[in-house]
C-alpha cells in the first residue's frame, strides 16, 4: 500500500471526479463531504512522499511497472514533493471554504463545481508529479479545461473573459506541445531525466534552441508573465469567488514550477545563460512585470482586480529569482512560490468572505469593516504585512533571498525594482487598512450638517466554514516565516542544482 502512494495522489481525485457527479445526481448535499474526504487522500499521500524524499532522497514510481525511458515515470524529488504538499493542502482548504460561496454564486450547481474542482486539482498535482514531458502537457490541459469551465460561471463579463482565456491558454499549451515535438524529434525521448542526459551534446542544434524558445513562451503565457498576462485580470476578477480562490494561487505557481523544471532539470543552467540569453531576457521581462503590475494595481479600486495585478507583479518576483541564476536567487524563487501561493490564497479567501457578506469589493466598501468582520480583517492585515515584507510574516524571507540573489548577480536594477515594489505594496494595502480601521465612525457626518448620530456597527462575521480556512492561512503565513530556515535546510537547498 505504502509503495503505491504516488499513484494514489493522482488516482484518488480523478476517481473522485467520476464519483462526485454520480453521488450529486441524487444527493446534492453529499458532494462536498465526498470531495473533502477524497481530497484528504492526496494530502496524506503527498506528505508521505515529501517525508520519504527528505529521509531517503528523490525516488521514482513506474506506472504499470514499465521502466522509465519507455514507460511513464512519476518522479518525486525535493521540489515536486514541496509543490505536491502545497497544492494538496490549498486544494483541501479551498474545497472546505467553498460551501457558502457556492451556495450563493453557483446555487444548484454543486456537483458541477466539486467535479471540476477535483479535476483541477488532479491536473495540478499531475503536472508536478510526472517525469514525462508529454504528460505535463496533458495534465496542463486537464487543469486548464476545468479552470475554463469553472470561471465561465462567474459574473457579467465572465463568459467573454473565459473565451479569451481559452484562446490564449490554448496558444500557450500548443506552444508547449511544439516544444515537446522538437525535443522529441531531436532525441527520441520524452522522459525528463532521460532527456537531461541526452541533451547536453545537442545544445547547439537549432532544433533544441527552437524547442526551448517554444517551451518558455508557452509556459510564460500560462504563467501570466508581463506582456502575455492579458487574459489574467478579467478571468480571475470575474470568476465566482470560490473559483478564483482555488485557481488564482495555484495555476500561475504551477506554471512557474514547469519553468524551473525546464530551465534547471531538463536543461543545464548554463544553457539559459551562455547558449541562449534566456536568463537575461526573462530577468528584464520580470522587471517590467513588477513595475507595470504595481502601477496597474495602484490604478484599481476593485480589490479583486487589484490583487490580480499584484499577482502579475509576484510572478515577476519568481521569474526574477529564476533569472539571476544563483543559489540565493533560486532559493528565493522556490520559497516565494510557496509563500505567494499562501498569501494570494488567503487574500482571495478574505475577499470571498467579504463579498459573501455582501459588502462589495470597492475600496470605499471597506469602511468600518474592522468592526463588522474583526477576524477576517485581522487576517487581511497579516497578509498585507506579509506582502509588504515585514519580518515575522513569510513574505519578508523570500524577498530577502530574492534581493540577496540580485545582489550576488550584481543586477542593481533588479534589486531596486524589488525594493520599490515592496513600497508600492505598502501603499496598496495600507490605503485599504486605513479605510477599514481609521475611517471616522460617524461616516463623515460632520462635513454635512446632519445631527451627529453615532453609526451603530453590528458585528457580522463570515460563517465558520469560511472563517476557519482564513484563520488557518493567517496562522500559516506567520508560522512559515520563522520556519523558512528549516524548510530551506530540509527541502529547498536540495532542489537547487548543485552547480550553483
Amino acid at each position, binding site marked *: 500500500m505504502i509503495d503505491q502512494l504516488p499513484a494514489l495522489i493522482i488516482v484518488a481525485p480523478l476517481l473522485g471526479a467520476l464519483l462526485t457527479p454520480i453521488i450529486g445526481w441524487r444527493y446534492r448535499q453529499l458532494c462536498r463531504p465526498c470531495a473533502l474526504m477524497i481530497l484528504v487522500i492526496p494530502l496524506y499521500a503527498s506528505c508521505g512522499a515529501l517525508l520519504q524524499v527528505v529521509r531517503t532522497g528523490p525516488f521514482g514510481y513506474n506506472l504499470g511497472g514499465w521502466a522509465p525511458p519507455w514507460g511513464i515515470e512519476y518522479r518525486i524529488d525535493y521540489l515536486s514533493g514541496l509543490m505536491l504538499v502545497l497544492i494538496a493542502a490549498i486544494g483541501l482548504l479551498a474545497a472546505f471554504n467553498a460551501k457558502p460561496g457556492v451556495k450563493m454564486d453557483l446555487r444548484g450547481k454543486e456537483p458541477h463545481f466539486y467535479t471540476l474542482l477535483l479535476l483541477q486539482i488532479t491536473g495540478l498535482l499531475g503536472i508536478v508529479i510526472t517525469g514525462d514531458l508529454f504528460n505535463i502537457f496533458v495534465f496542463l490541459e486537464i487543469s486548464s479545461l476545468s479552470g*475554463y469551465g469553472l470561471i465561465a460561471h462567474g459574473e457579467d463579463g465572465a463568459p467573454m473573459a473565459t473565451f479569451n482565456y481559452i*484562446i490564449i491558454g490554448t496558444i500557450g499549451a*500548443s506552444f508547449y506541445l511544439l516544444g515537446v515535438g522538437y525535443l522529441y524529434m531531436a532525441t527520441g525521448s520524452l522522459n525528463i531525466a532521460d532527456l537531461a542526459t541526452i541533451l547536453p551534446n545537442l545544445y547547439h542544434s537549432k532544433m533544441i534552441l527552437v524547442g526551448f524558445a517554444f517551451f518558455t513562451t508557452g509556459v510564460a503565457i500560462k504563467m501570466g508573465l508581463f506582456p502575455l498576462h492579458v487574459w489574467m485580470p478579467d478571468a480571475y476578477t470575474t470568476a465566482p469567488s470560490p473559483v478564483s480562490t482555488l485557481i488564482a494561487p495555484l495555476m500561475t505557481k504551477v506554471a512557474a514550477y514547469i519553468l524551473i523544471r525546464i530551465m534547471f532539470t531538463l536543461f543545464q543552467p548554463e544553457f539559459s545563460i551562455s547558449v541562449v540569453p534566456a536568463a537575461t531576457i526573462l530577468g528584464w521581462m520580470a522587471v517590467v512585470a513588477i513595475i507595470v503590475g504595481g502601477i496597474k494595481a495602484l490604478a484599481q479600486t476593485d480589490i479583486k482586480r487589484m490583487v490580480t495585478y499584484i499577482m502579475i507583479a509576484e510572478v515577476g518576483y519568481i521569474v526574477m529569482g529564476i533569472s539571476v541564476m544563483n543559489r540565493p536567487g533560486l532559493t528565493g524563487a522556490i520559497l516565494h512560490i510557496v509563500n505567494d501561493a499562501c498569501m494570494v490564497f488567503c487574500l482571495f479567501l478574505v475577499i470571498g468572505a467579504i463579498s459573501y457578506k455582501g459588502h462589495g469589493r470597492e475600496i470605499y466598501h471597506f469602511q468600518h469593516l474592522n468592526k463588522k468582520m474583526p477576524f477576517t480583517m485581522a487576517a487581511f492585515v497579516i497578509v498585507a504585512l506579509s506582502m509588504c515584507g515585514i519580518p515575522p510574516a513569510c513574505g519578508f524571507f523570500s524577498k530577502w533571498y530574492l534581493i540577496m540573489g540580485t545582489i550576488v548577480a550584481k543586477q542593481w536594477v533588479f534589486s531596486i525594482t524589488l525594493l520599490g515594489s515592496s513600497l508600492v505594496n505598502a501603499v496598496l494595502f495600507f490605503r485599504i487598512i486605513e479605510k477599514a480601521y481609521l475611517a471616522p465612525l460617524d461616516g463623515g457626518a460632520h462635513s454635512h450638517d446632519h445631527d451627529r448620530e453615532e453609526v451603530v456597527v453590528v458585528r457580522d462575521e463570515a460563517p465558520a466554514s469560511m472563517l476557519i480556512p482564513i484563520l488557518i492561512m493567517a496562522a500559516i503565513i506567520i508560522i512559515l516565516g520563522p520556519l523558512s530556515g528549516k524548510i530551506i535546510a530540509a527541502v529547498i537547498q536540495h532542489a537547487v542544482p548543485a552547480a550553483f
Partner: protein
Amino acid sequence: MLEYILAKYNFWIYVVLMMIGLYAMMGKRNLVKKLIGMNIFQTSIILFFVSTGVKKGGATVPILMGHGHGHGQHLIQVADYLNPLPHVLMLTAIVVSIATTGVALATLILIYKRYHTLEEDEIMAIRKDPSAYKTLG
C-alpha cells in the same frame, strides 16, 4: 532555394497553417471564426507531429519484422520501422483539442444567451453601455 523549401515541405505546411490560425484568432472579430482559427492552429501542430514519424524507403510496422523468421530474437534496427509514438501522442492531443473546442463552444452559447450576438465589437459596445443591448437584440 526551391529545393531547400521542398526538402522540408512538411514544416512549411505546418508553419503556414499555424500562421493562418494565429491570424484568424487575432484578426477576426467573430468569435466562432476565432474558434475555427484555434482549431486550425491545433491541427497544424498535430500534422507536424505526425509528419515527424514518417520514414521513407521500406520502413514498416515494428511487429511485422520479427514474424516468419522463426529462429529466436533478432534485433530490429531503428531505421527499419516507423515510430508509432508520435501518432499515439497525437491521439491524446486530438482528444485534448476536441475537449477544448467543446468547452469553447459551450462558452459561446453562454455568451450568445447573454448578449444575443457573437461579434466581438458589438459585445464590447454592449458591455460599455448596456442600453445598446435593446437596439441590437
